[in-house]
């Protein structure tokens, strides 16, 4: 059963959160004053296009991992498939690069 393998994952989540709550409840050192202005409204980031390409490109991995597992047992056909897939993705990166998307704004 797959679920049983993840029991330890859930348990570690609970333990870490519990330990943090415990620490927050018990550990009360003196305050270090911090007088700084709020910063939420100073917004601008220079990598908008990188971020958008990343959103789309991130999905490539979920296709690549199952493929990598079965690749050796299928052989050439799988290689050809992935070659086409990688060619398509490379075209995307090349386009972004050519259009000047991979630049800091």
């Amino acid at each position, binding site marked *: 059963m797959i679920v049983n393998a993840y029991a330890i994952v859930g348990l570690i989540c609970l333990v870490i959160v519990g330990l943090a709550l415990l620490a927050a409840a018990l550990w009360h050192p003196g305050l270090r004053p911090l007088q700084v202005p709020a910063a939420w409204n100073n917004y601008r980031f220079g990598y*908008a296009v990188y971020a*958008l*390409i990343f*959103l*789309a490109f991130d*999905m490539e991995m*979920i*296709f690549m991992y199952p493929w990598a597992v079965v690749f050796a047992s299928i052989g050439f056909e799988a290689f050809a498939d992935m070659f086409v897939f990688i060619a398509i993705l490379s075209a995307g990166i090349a386009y972004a690069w050519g259009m000047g998307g991979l630049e800091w704004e």
Partner: protein
Amino acid sequence: MIIPLTAYLIVGAVLFAIGIYAVLAQRSAVMILMGIEVLLNAIGLNLIAFWRFVRPDDYSAQIFTILIVTIGAVEMAVGLAIMLLLYRNRQTVQVDAYEELHG
């Protein structure tokens, strides 16, 4: 299988309802995009629940769910790009500011 299929489907239905609320009630286009993600996610949950309980031997459902997530990601990328364009032109992404986009 202690938890019945219906329990998962109910969670999916509640998520779907919240997604509908978010899509209808939010003014910011990004929030509407997020509502759509919730809708897609509710669909994915239903698909996987039915896969597990009705056809656990056929992994097609997982492929469909992967495709749904892919579509969600691409939709997010293109949607945000459109909003960035609108924002650079008009300084707002609130949907009621774009009356003239109606046909």
